[in-house]
């Protein structure tokens, strides 16, 4: 069964460093999303992407964040200058006419 994959599974970085989180969505899906979950809290929406552009973004998704779909398979989330409060699990999701499928997540730890 097709699934969303994410790399790396765990990333440790120092405050102020740039990180790129990578996702490979399910191949025939058209809608792509990033969410995050701070430890012990609920899952929060960051950004959605359709037809090669951002379709919606949350207040969390400020100028430090960017997304790209550089080729036909990858979908990336970049954080330019990480802060301690960016430590969280980041989930990529892809969608097919409504239902969204989530990847296993990347746990980002900012020290």
């Amino acid at each position, binding site marked *: 069964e097709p699934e969303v994959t994410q790399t790396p599974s765990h990333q440790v970085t120092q405050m102020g460093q740039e990180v790129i989180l990578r996702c490979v969505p399910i191949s025939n899906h058209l*809608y792509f*999303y990033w*969410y995050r*979950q701070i430890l012990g809290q*609920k*899952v*929060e*929406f960051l950004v*959605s992407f*359709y037809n090669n552009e951002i*379709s*919606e973004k*949350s207040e969390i998704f400020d100028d430090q964040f960017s997304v790209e779909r550089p080729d036909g398979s990858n979908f990336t989330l970049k954080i330019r200058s990480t802060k301690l409060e960016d430590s969280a*699990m980041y*989930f990529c*999701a892809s*969608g097919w*006419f*409504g*239902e*969204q*499928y*989530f990847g*296993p*997540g990347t*746990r980002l730890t900012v020290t």
Partner: protein
Amino acid sequence: GIQVEQSPPDLILQEGANSTLRCNFSDSVNNLQWFHQNPWGQLINLFYIPSGTKQNGRLSATTVATERYSLLYISSSQTTDSGVYFCAVEEPAGGTSYGKLTFGQGTILTVHP
């Protein structure tokens, strides 16, 4: 934005017991999904159920969209059912776009042997 409330926040069961988890939402939705977050943090799709009733093995779900709630039933619970159960809803978006999911706070289920 839409509000999603789940109850109960915590639930402790003995193996073999049945349970019902509830999700209330404050406005009309296009989509409702139930997820199980396992101890490794993975979000596992359980149901895509904007309305009606579905069953998958020991799990079933019912969404009554007109009354803005959904129920997840777990029968004959097993220790592997432990984890956090999330309800998430999608508000209607413009045009043909499919929008973000808004998650509830989750129900933490612990099943003891």
